[in-house]
């Protein structure tokens, strides 16, 4: 994992963050729920909380879909290429390329549209930037910079969790999957009765 230069974070007094959507996008509740799920993945492992509010101006995190040059010096480039970008704390700006073919449900890997992009996967990645994470060289991590089209990758990897917890600490109710305090049941190699290893 990596951080932005200077390791900017949301200050201690601003750990209960609010988010809102550009009103002109007129997003459906279904689309907004995708972002809600993406935020939940980060709040699960940190003490941070995320609450959607209506006021775009008052929100800490401002989410919007834009096309081409949208005024921040980082124009979008049409289909594929750059999918989205987000700014480091405490800017809170999260922009997505409105030209992409975003998909929010179903098994995207079976899509016949080779340019279909899974919205939640990109949202989880960009929220990492909003919170202070940079890109990672760990390919399985959410913060790896590229994602092939028709791919869904939404689970935080150990690398992501370690990075974000270095910035904000852990959620008290979060237990690391490989935590030594978690008793582990060892099964013999020949025991395949219920599908494999479990913690």
């Amino acid at each position, binding site marked *: 994992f990596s951080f932005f230069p200077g390791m900017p974070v949301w200050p201690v007094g601003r750990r209960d963050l609010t988010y809102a959507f550009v009103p002109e996008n007129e997003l459906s509740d279904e689309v907004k729920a995708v972002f809600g799920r993406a935020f939940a993945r980060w709040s699960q492992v940190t003490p941070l909380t995320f609450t959607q509010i209506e006021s775009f101006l008052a929100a800490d995190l401002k989410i919007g879909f834009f096309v081409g040059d949208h005024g921040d010096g980082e124009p979008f480039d049409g289909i594929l290429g*750059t999918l989205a970008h987000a700014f480091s704390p405490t800017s809170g700006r999260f922009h997505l390329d409105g030209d992409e073919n*975003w998909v929010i*449900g*179903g098994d995207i890997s079976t899509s016949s549209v080779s340019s*279909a992009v899974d919205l939640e996967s990109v949202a989880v990645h*960009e929220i990492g930037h909003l919170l202070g994470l940079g890109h990672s*060289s760990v390919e399985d991590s959410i913060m790896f*910079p*590229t994602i092939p089209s028709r791919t869904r990758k939404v689970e935080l990897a150990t690398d992501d969790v370690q990075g974000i917890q270095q910035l904000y600490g852990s959620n008290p109710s979060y237990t690391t999957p490989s935590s030594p305090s978690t008793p582990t049941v060892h099964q013999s190699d020949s025991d395949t009765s219920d599908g494999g290893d479990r913690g």
Partner: protein
Amino acid sequence: RIFPNISSIPPWLIQKNDTVLGAWDAFKGFGGCRFGERTQGLSKLKSYFNHFGYIPNSPYNFTDDFDDDLESALRTYQKNFNLNVTGTLDEPTIQSLIRPRCGNADIVNGTTTMNSGKPTTTALNSTRFHTVGH
């Protein structure tokens, strides 16, 4: 364009999709380009590397020459993306370059803690303490 699921994507878009090129598909034509060569459009690849932090801002427009800057950028990119560090536009590197990605830079103000910003294994070994269990 936001679709609830893949079956809601209209047929016209599926047909159109076959003819639409991604933003960086032109990079596929650079396969086999070598250091010292000049290839039309290579300046766009340099702009790509500049955007993501691999080539510093240039006071001049980028040329179509495969020069030191481009080779160095390629090596750093290959290290960051776990590719073989060849400094050439080999097929795995091109496939990685054209993949859709986040618009944030990999290297900000010349620094990164992706692979290329980490000490090499040799450097790590020289400063690592060795312990023996008794």
